[in-house]
């Protein structure tokens, strides 16, 4: 048995740079919130998405109770969309807040008018204040923020169908939309860095089911390169689904890491990114973490470790009903694999 020699924060930051670590870090670029953890610290949804103290308290359980090396307080994907005026279905404790995409706020690129002080809105400020709280409370843990990419914001503000049709019919208009919305991504990313975040997750839902790898290259690769240059902390790109066809493009963006889905094998993904970007993932959520036992979770973690994946964690925001013992099994598998005490 050996002992860990790095702090959680040092470990995560090193893995994001693909530098040596004392053990593989457990990283959650997306939410680890569950209804039981909400009860444990009395910080239930939806309020834990809107009040910074509750947001920070619930997020901290990922480190204090589950043993992750990172804390990620931005559970949902709607904070900045709410701040710019999208209508939100806030839901209850046991479900996710969502943007009402059937009631879009924009119809054409010319409608996009984002006020200069959009980050003063409470749902953006909540994120920034939660990061400040966590930075003070956990100086040795990696704090990860989240800023949504313009493709996802396009879905939220135009509606999925309208935005996808626009991307098929009018490339110039689509680029106009993305160029206007990217301001939100950059400004929110920079603000979170200033609040104390060590890295930001950047979900941009050019998902494998609806958007091809070629589409990614055409519309998003350059924008993602721009984010890597403008946002002064490491970026973890998150795209759901089967994405091996675009991992090569993603690896060339200059982003630090790609948070990848269980629909992609660990070995093929490592091969696809060619050592140019770190990978984080990819324990399956709906089947393995939610409904199978700890041994199946450990098997998936081991597959990632054996493939050399730099950081392990769930593939996406975990279901709110996920059993705590399944989440703790992720850490147990890493500790066992590295022979640590």
């Amino acid at each position, binding site marked *: 048995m050996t002992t860990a020699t790095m702090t959680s924060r040092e470990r995560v930051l090193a893995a994001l740079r693909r530098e040596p670590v004392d053990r593989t870090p457990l990283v959650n670029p997306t*939410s680890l919130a569950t209804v039981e953890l909400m009860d444990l610290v009395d910080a239930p949804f939806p309020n834990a998405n809107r009040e910074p103290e509750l947001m920070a308290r619930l997020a901290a359980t990922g480190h204090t109770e589950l043993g992750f090396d990172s804390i990620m307080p931005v559970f949902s994907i709607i904070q900045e969309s709410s701040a710019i005026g999208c209508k939100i279905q806030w839901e209850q404790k*046991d479900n996710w807040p969502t943007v009402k995409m059937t009631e879009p706020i924009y119809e054409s690129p010319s409608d996009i008018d984002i006020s200069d002080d959009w980050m003063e809105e409470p749902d953006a400020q909540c994120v920034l204040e939660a990061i400040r709280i966590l930075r003070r409370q956990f100086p040795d843990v990696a704090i990860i923020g989240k800023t949504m990419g313009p493709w996802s914001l396009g879905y939220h503000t135009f509606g999925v169908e309208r935005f996808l049709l626009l991307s098929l019919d009018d490339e110039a208009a689509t680029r106009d939309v993305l160029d206007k919305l990217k301001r939100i991504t950059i400004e929110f990313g920079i603000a979170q860095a200033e609040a104390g975040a060590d890295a930001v997750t950047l979900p941009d839902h050019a998902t494998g089911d*609806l958007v091809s790898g070629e589409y990614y290259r055409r519309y998003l690769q350059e924008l993602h390169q721009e984010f890597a240059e403008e946002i002064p902390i490491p970026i973890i790109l998150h795209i759901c689904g089967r994405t091996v066809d675009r991992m090569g493009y993603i690896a060339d963006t200059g982003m630090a890491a790609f948070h990848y889905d269980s629909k992609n094998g660990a070995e093929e993904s490592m091969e696809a990114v060619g050592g140019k970007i770190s990978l984080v993932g990819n324990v399956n959520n709906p089947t393995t973490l939610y409904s199978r036992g700890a041994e199946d979770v450990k098997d998936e973690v081991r597959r990632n470790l054996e493939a050399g994946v730099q950081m392990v964690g769930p593939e996406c925001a975990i279901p709110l009903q996920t059993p705590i*013992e399944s989440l703790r099994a992720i850490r147990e598998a890493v500790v066992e694999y590295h022979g640590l005490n």
Partner: protein
Amino acid sequence: MPVRTDLGQRVELVSMDPRCHDVSFGLYRKETPEGPVAVVYSYSTKAGTDERVAFITAALAALGGLELVVAGGDQAVRLPCRDWHNAAMKRLFLDCFRVEPTGDLSPRPLQAPDTRSEQTITLAPLGDGAYRVESSPAADGEEPRAPAIARALVRLVQIEELDETTVRFPCGRDHHELMGLMLVRAQNLRASLREEELTASRGVLTAPSAQE
């Protein structure tokens, strides 16, 4: 209060109990030298939570015919066969939350009027964990409901099908109380399964492109 690591495997969850501040309650399968036991647990410290845990535990025992035991300091229940029937335990747990706190905790009988016909359904115990599903004579042109109810019980409780109207618990022990409770649900299998699907999909975050 830290996370409990000695509760065993969570097999079912009520994520919001409207009768107790929308608190979450889990049903945990805990292994003991005498066989598996079930523990009801909540991480909430809100007032009334302990009392609610005690009520649900008592309801499990009464409605499911389970034995009250203490396991590792936790009040628990176990099946009299000392085995574990996962599907039945999950459904029993969920049903306990439907009972009014001042409601009747008597076990349900092995006979019930069918909700879809004029027939009466009876579960006749054959011993060794086997039950024959019987339906009273059907009206002209109406199919006997017994085979459909037997198939529904097989799916809901995950018990063995011996023939088209006979089912049996694999442990070989009778569970009259569980069967009485499941008889009510088996009459509307589709609704039970639909409810299960809805519960399973709730709380799962989907990409914007997959949201309705």
